[in-house]
């Protein structure tokens, strides 16, 4: 187990810069998830930690010791590959025992450790099979088992669940979380799936274009995204972004969304939002905060009247799609209200659930003395 630090870590392939001097601290025993869209540099970052990719600049520290010049075998990491990378000519048992064999562990000890890991993953009766005789889900377990036989400093996972179907993925997510709760080994886990990131992580690292956008625990990222990118990436369905003009009059600030829709800004945010008065901004509201139901909203509710375009019932709730200014947006409806396409509804949101985004910088403007949890921002 180890604490992992990335310091001004940089990677170029030829002239093309792929990772731009990122800094990251991962505490001992922490479950850190690198998340971001495809091509943002997650795998490259993970491979640099593993030692499979040379670093162009900066440093990687395990417990304060620089490891970026060490061979993978000398870093004491265990990695699960997206492709599983099982050795096809070896049985499951030999696949799992391979790392122990490389360390020169005795046969009896090998047998014991493989047995424990196989037990943990429920693959004891597959030990004598070859990888080609396994289903996709079983291969995935063996790939995990191969990492779990050891007690490495860090576990590295590169999209380990992306080749599984949805049901199996949900099941394995729970197992991975359980395993981490039991072993408490530092994990760096890469995924493009924000649901996986939210459900698994102690710490989410949102990456975009070779930069770290924001680091924080799942709820902080959900409540206080620093940028439009994070706001749009975390949460499902995606946050709505309404282009608007922020206007000031005698009653305070309000956002004009066009088509006669006007959202009053709460008094306590006046100081933070005032510099944007008279400018184009974006208003962000998550679908799950934009409600079509009769439930009372405690403080400073805002409302907008829209025409329903599509209704998607989900059982307990339904997704309502509506169009404003040629763009589709989503809200959550009460199935009991039986909305029909073409009907007019009044959607409401609590003022605290509204975000103001500076469209030039893409930053979310947060009031300084907001009552939410404190946030650590990425530099």
């Amino acid at each position, binding site marked *: 187990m180890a604490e992992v630090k990335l310091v001004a870590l940089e990677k170029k392939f030829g002239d093309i810069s792929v990772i731009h001097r990122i800094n990251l601290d991962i505490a001992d025993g922490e479950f850190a998830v690198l998340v971001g869209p495809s091509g943002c540099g997650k795998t490259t970052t993970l491979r640099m930690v593993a030692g499979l990719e040379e670093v162009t600049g900066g440093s990687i520290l395990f417990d304060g010791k620089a490891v970026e010049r060490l*061979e*993978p075998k000398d870093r004491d990491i265990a*990695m699960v590959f997206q*492709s599983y*990378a099982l*050795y*096809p000519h070896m049985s499951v048992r030999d696949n799992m025992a391979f790392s122990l064999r*490389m360390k020169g562990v005795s046969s009896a000890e090998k047998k014991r450790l493989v047995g424990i890991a196989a037990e943990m993953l429920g693959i004891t009766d597959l030990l004598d099979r070859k990888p080609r005789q396994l289903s996709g889900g079983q291969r995935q377990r063996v790939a995990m088992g191969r990492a779990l036989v050891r007690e490495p400093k860090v576990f590295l996972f590169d999209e380990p669940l992306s080749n599984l179907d949805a049901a199996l993925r949900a099941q394995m997510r729970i197992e991975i979380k359980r395993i981490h709760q039991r072993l408490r080994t530092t994990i760096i886990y890469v995924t493009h799936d924000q649901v996986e990131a939210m459900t698994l992580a102690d710490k989410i690292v949102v990456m975009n274009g070779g930069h770290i956008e924001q680091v924080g625990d799942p709820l902080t990222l959900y409540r206080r995204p620093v940028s439009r990118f994070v706001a749009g990436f975390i949460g499902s369905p995606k946050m709505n972004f309404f282009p608007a003009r922020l206007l000031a009059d005698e009653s305070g600030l309000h956002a004009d969304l066009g088509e006669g829709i006007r959202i009053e800004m709460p008094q306590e945010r006046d100081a933070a939002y005032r510099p944007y008065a008279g400018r184009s901004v974006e208003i962000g509201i998550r679908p799950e905060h934009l409600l079509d139901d009769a439930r009372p909203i405690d403080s400073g509710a805002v409302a907008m009247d829209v025409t329903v375009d599509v209704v998607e019932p989900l059982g307990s709730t339904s997704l309502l799609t509506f169009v404003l200014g040629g763009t589709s947006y989503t809200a959550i409806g009460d199935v009991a209200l039986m909305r029909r396409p073409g009907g007019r509804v009044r959607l409401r949101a609590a003022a605290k659930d509204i975000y103001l985004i500076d469209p030039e910088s893409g930053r979310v403007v947060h009031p300084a003395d907001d009552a939410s949890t404190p946030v650590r921002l990425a530099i």
Partner: protein
Amino acid sequence: MTGRSGLQWLLLGLAVALLLAFAAFPLLWMGLTALKPSTEIFTWPPRLLPEAPTLSNIERLFAQTHFVTYFKNSVIVSSAAVILTLLLAVPGAYGLTRYRFFGRETIAATVLFTYMFAPIMIIIPFYIVMRTFGLANTHIALVLAYCAFSLPFALWMLRTFFQSIPIDLEEAAMTDGASRFRAVIHVVIPMALPGIIATAILTFILAWNDYIFARILISSDNLKTLPVGIADLYNASVIDWGMIMASGLLVIIPVIIVFSYVQKFLVAGWGSGGVKG
């Protein structure tokens, strides 16, 4: 493969039989002639089966010629050529697939180009080089010649095999605590085994069947390999066909044994399943 009519089966069978006869008949004739006494070989009309089968041709081959020496020389030279070729081609082909360096693709292409030279074009210069180093009329010269000649093809073929092995597997081995060398030994080589065996067989056959290098590079009778040794049986004033056929038979037997033993490696491979899919 359903839906073929009886007639189609018949035609197919005939075609196969024809092809088989064309390929196998000379071998069969050689084998049967080897078992005929000299008096029967020239009977007219010719007869397929020996009337009084005998091993006398084989006996004479062992008693009156240096067949055993030739055979031993062939085994030594061919095996050494296989070993040397693999020792050079396996790391070479691995390097051509796994390391990026200047001119890598050019080297790979040029390697195959050298394979286009017929042996006859390089044999004289090769002889002169060997003589300069004092290696003319040695087995070392033969081994070097076979190795030089099979290396381009071996490199090319193994490169293709190494390319087909997912790099993930080696990387997995390295994160599992293996050095690159051990990753190659434990993961890459076992997976490339069908290719390595195929390369070994082709090199062996090339060396085993070679006439021209052995003819030119070797002059001492006790260093000759089988093809040259057998060819020299013609030089006697009376050509002993029975003995020549017997030697032909004994030359192909080891090849057939090797082939039938290793072909299952060539066909089976290791199958897929390591990497998803």
